[in-house]
């Protein structure tokens, strides 16, 4: 099967030819399969944001090709614009892009640009609002009256309402309280399951990535340093730490327990896994 998105030797250099020349990403090859939940982690300035903006044609690569379902998305202006509706991108702090008089109108902005019928737009707006658990009562309020968490969800709904086949989110939980984070992650999971969509999520939180995604990519200095399941990636603790990142805290606890002599699996990366390991040990008769 052709991957839904493919990057082929993509490089991007900012401000080429000035003293501020800066390589965003270099020679990135990446295949993203239909229905995948992909996590992207990396240090600040590692090129994550640059890379994801290539996926829907917002940034054109200075070298290399980007394919959506096997077609070059930068082939013409029309294809690039078309892809934006199929690959929805939620930027970091998306609440800063809210602008309409009401939440309803703001969510409808994307679908309206797709030139859909009014009935279709209405359906999509309400469905998107349900996905992110925005109550009916806020739909006619000004987006600027909402709380921080609600603003964030309204902004995400604005992208979900376009019903993209691929949903990309750049740190969707940054700056939210733990409960707000969990809610957003649940909303995204639900969207993926119900729509069969592909989801790509950039995050700084190893815990979040560890318990949500099926595959993760680690960016370092503008290229992909690691690519695999969280199990594979977090097993390489030393390498990850050398890139200025860290493994989930649970993995650290597991490691300490192992150092104390408990036979625990090397690649524990969620609390649930550790709990299973420990209860299994207790069942085996060892006191801990």
């Amino acid at each position, binding site marked *: 099967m052709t991957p839904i998105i493919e990057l082929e030797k993509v490089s991007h250099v*900012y401000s080429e030819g000035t*003293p501020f020349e800066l390589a965003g990403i270099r020679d990135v090859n990446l295949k993203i399969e239909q229905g995948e939940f992909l996590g992207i982690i990396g240090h600040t300035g590692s090129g994550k944001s640059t890379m994801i903006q290539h996926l829907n044609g917002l940034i054109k690569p200075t070298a290399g090709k980007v394919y959506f379902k096997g077609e070059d998305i930068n082939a013409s202006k029309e294809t690039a614009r078309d892809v*934006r509706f199929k690959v*929805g991108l939620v*930027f970091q702090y998306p609440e800063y*892009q809210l*602008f309409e008089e009401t939440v309803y109108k703001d969510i409808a*902005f994307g679908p309206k*640009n797709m030139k859909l019928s009014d009935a279709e737009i209405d359906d999509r707006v309400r469905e998107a609002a349900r996905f992110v658990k925005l109550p009916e009562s806020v739909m006619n309020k000004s987006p600027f009256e909402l709380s921080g968490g609600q603003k964030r969800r309204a902004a995400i709904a604005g992208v979900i309402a376009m019903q993209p086949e691929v949903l990309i989110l750049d740190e969707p939980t940054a700056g939210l309280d733990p409960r707000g984070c969990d809610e957003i992650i649940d909303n995204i999971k639900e969207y993926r399951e119900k729509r069969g969509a592909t989801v790509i999520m950039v995050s700084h939180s190893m815990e979040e990535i560890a318990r949500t995604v099926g595959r993760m990519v680690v960016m370092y200095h503008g290229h992909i340093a690691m690519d695999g399941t969280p199990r594979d990636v977090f097993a390489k603790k030393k390498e990850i730490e050398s890139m200025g990142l860290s493994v989930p805290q649970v993995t650290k606890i597991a490691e300490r327990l192992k150092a104390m002599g408990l036979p625990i699996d090397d690649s524990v990366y969620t609390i649930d896994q550790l709990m299973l390991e420990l209860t299994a040990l207790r069942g085996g008769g060892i006191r801990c």
Partner: protein
Amino acid sequence: MLRDITLGQYFPGSSVIHNLDPRTKLVVVFVYIVLLFVGNSFVSYIVLGALLAACIAASGIKLKMLLRGIKPVIIILIFTAVLNIFFTPGTPVFTLWRISVTYEGLRMAAYLIIRIVMLITGTLLLTYTTSPLALTDGLEALMRPLKKIKVPVHELTMMMSIALKFIPILIEETDKIMSAQKARGADFETGNLIQKAKAMMPLLIPLFISSLRRAEELAMAMESRCYHGDDGRTRMKQLVFAGRDYAAFALTAVTAAVMITLAVFGF
């Protein structure tokens, strides 16, 4: 894209020009601009051009970067030059139907282009080699005498330095919001003037809101660090004239003398 705008941009460096006192640079640029309009012969522009070329060479700034600043005014430049060529009375060089191209017109157009190009490159050299902070510091020092007549010099320059500081931040912000709205299918490029103006709303509203928010945050941060205006404020970097500053003044004075002599004797 937007980030390519070089208005008021500063390229750090350590050349003689970079290291000149900002007050010196401001005075020299001011004199230079006056001299641009004193000059009225090709010989005088060669003299002034030599000074500019020497400064550019000493600064290490690429000529390409300086010429980039001319791009936005190129249309106005061509338009005024054409008007000058055709509508200046004088000795005709040749005549097309009823419009004649005059010798005086050609000369006026050439002067005009030289003046504007040199004006832009000269002032750009100042902003490219002087950090906004140094620039406003220099301005404040030069305008200090105006405080005697109750001009709020410190407040004005503080506002200016904040404004300058916000330019790159706002450009970045604009870029970001634009990308975000484009990701939702916003179209900023096609359509007629009214459609284009309407299409700007999703960009302008968030931009205004975030500017107000930033201003408020900055005011709060300044107050929480006990900012209270000019009185009793000290500086970490005091402005002191060095030998190179006196040399620059001397060079400028000599150039000015030559230019005025040329103008008076009509070369």
